[in-house]
């Protein structure tokens, strides 16, 4: 009798685990990252830091987190198929990840329709927390406009009146530069010229640099990332332009992830970003020490996205969330002080609100490092056509 009861209970437990999303003490997390393809290094940073974040803050939540990883390959159709697999087959409670804005655009309707909360840990396209916003999508990383807008006024305040802009010709490049130029001209600056080299087809920026040099600008403001950022910064320096025409930009240009590949060419470049590893606060000191101990690397802005995503998830669970619906309701309400400073989520768009740090790349003891010049106050993005349903539940 006892035996049968035990077996029945075990059977009941198994069937419950399989039929419902998960038990209360068990949160199933689907991680959607491009483990292969051009963004694999970013994915690794996000994943490592997410795991570190769960190890650091997870015990406070009193639940176990089961992780299911899927590779988006930076391809929207693959990302969509993997999202469906995580939602329907693995029945995850929450999704985190998405590096590419293209993949985020592709999975948005599925996530929204299925009512599964998604913590965006990188993709910065403005629409995701603008006209395509969803009560189920909470962005913990950044938006393209957020990182660039504050630099417009700051540069005018520093006496820069005329700029020339260069950025790759694709959605993110346009959004970053447009946000900057809008703020820059509103503050009284003038954009004297713009170049939009074809995205991922330009290896030699020489032709564009010549135009910038001839434009009569006080400074050049650019956005590039990854391999293009390295080529651009090195070529800018090789033409001897840094002395007469200082280089400013979106902080991804000289990301700590690859700034050492740029070498001395990156010295003196001034950019703005939501996180640099040299921020002086106890939360960041803890992250840098723990991340270094775990991986041997310095945490990049991508790592901090993963780390804070884990923290946000833990905070939501601590607030009582147990399943898809309650997590979706709790995630936009989290706020905490992390390595980046004070973070909260804007209820109007579900986008993060965070301070932006202006930094200069300088030579340090071991390689290049970041000297923070100014911390610009947190500012919520304009709503941009986002209409949030009144209640999620």
């Amino acid at each position: 009798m006892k035996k049968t009861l035990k077996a029945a209970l075990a059977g009941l437990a198994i069937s419950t685990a399989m039929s419902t999303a998960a038990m209360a003490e068990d949160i199933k997390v689907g991680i959607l990252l491009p483990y292969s393809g051009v963004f694999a290094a970013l994915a690794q940073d996000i994943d490592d830091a997410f795991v570190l974040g769960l190890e650091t803050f997870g015990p406070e939540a009193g639940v176990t987190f089961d992780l299911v990883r899927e590779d988006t390959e930076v391809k929207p159709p693959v990302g969509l198929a993997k999202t469906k697999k995580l939602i329907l087959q693995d029945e995850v409670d929450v999704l985190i990840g998405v590096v590419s804005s293209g993949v985020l655009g592709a999975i948005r309707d599925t996530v929204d329709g299925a009512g599964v909360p998604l913590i965006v840990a990188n993709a910065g396209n403005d629409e995701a927390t603008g006209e395509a916003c969803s009560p189920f999508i909470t962005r913990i990383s950044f938006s393209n406009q957020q990182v660039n807008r504050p630099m417009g006024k700051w540069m005018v305040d520093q006496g820069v009146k005329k700029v020339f802009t260069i950025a790759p010709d694709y959605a993110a490049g346009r959004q970053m530069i447009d946000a900057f130029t809008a703020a820059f001209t509103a503050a009284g600056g003038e954009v004297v010229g713009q170049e939009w080299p074809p995205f991922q087809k330009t290896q030699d920026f020489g032709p564009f640099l010549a135009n910038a040099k001839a434009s009569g600008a006080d400074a050049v403001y650019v956005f590039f990332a990854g391999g293009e950022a390295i080529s651009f910064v090195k070529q800018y320096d090789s033409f001897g332009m840094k002395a007469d025409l200082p280089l400013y930009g979106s902080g991804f240009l000289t990301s700590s992830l690859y700034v050492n590949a740029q070498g001395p060419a990156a010295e003196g470049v001034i950019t703005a970003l939501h996180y640099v590893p040299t921020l002086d606060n106890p939360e960041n000191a803890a992250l840098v020490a723990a991340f270094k101990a775990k991986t041997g690397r310095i945490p990049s802005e991508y790592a901090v996205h993963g780390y804070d995503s884990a923290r946000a998830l833990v905070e939501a669970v601590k607030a009582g969330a147990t399943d898809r619906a309650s997590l979706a309701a709790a995630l936009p309400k989290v706020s905490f002080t992390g390595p980046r400073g004070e973070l909260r989520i804007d209820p109007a768009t579900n986008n993060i609100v965070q301070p932006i740090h202006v930094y200069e790349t300088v030579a340090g003891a071991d390689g290049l490092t970041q000297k923070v010049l100014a911390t610009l106050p947190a500012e919520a993005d304009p709503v941009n056509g986002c209409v949030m349903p009144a209640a999620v539940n």
Partner: protein
Amino acid sequence: MTADLGFWVLQTLNALQLSMLLFLLSVGLTVIFGLMHFVNLAHGSLYAFGAYMAASLAGVLGYWGGFLLAPLAVAALGAVLYFTLIRSQRRAGPMAQVLITFGLIFVAVDATRLIWGDLPIGIAVPAVFEGQLALLGVTYPIYRLFIIALGLAVLAVLTLVLTRTQVGAMIRAGVDNDQMAACLGINVERMFFLVFVVGCALAGLAGAVAAPVLSVTPDMGLQILIPTLIVIVIGGLGSLKGAVAGSLIFGFVQTFGAVLLPTFNSVLIYALLAAVLVIRPEGLLPAKG
């Protein structure tokens, strides 16, 4: 801007620099094709391998160590490829060759990711070529002038070898008609091997000189492949002159298109390619008259 002479000088130098880089790549590919009728789509991967080797060796031996050894390393890899895949597929027809070398591209991309990681690498310009030079009213990076000079030097050596030496005459005979050349007692097989390995070494050299200017990324071989193919199709398959002409046309159209007609830039070179294919399908300066 366009009335300023300096602008034209600067952009001409930019165009020449791009042309010479493409020339180093396309000359190997086009002669291999002309001689062996072998389509080697993995040629760009050899260029990437050259850049990675140069970047790694530069850390140990300095820039010049990488510059000299990277082409040799790529030539050695080329020799391995020749004996394992290329030779057995010589008579297999273009479809099998395209599939195999296309597959090699993906193998190469993932192999570089495994060995060197996903993050782009950069190396510094050698100390001798740091800085800029005032030239015809513009200041231009010395290293880029070095690339132009190197391309011209390679062009001069190849022209000399192909037109003035016995090996050159044998290669030309092989490109014209390999069966007849074999009948005349030329060891065509050995010549194929020589040309293939030299072509690979030139791709490696291109990678090594490009490494300080561009960033070294796993997909750089794929990015350069299409421009290289366009160059040899425009220039004419199998000919040195064609490779020169194709590289110059591509370099100038790309550079001046980017600054004068930015909106049409991506289309310009393809429009030109289409025009060449319609009007002169064999290319502008084909090897066989």
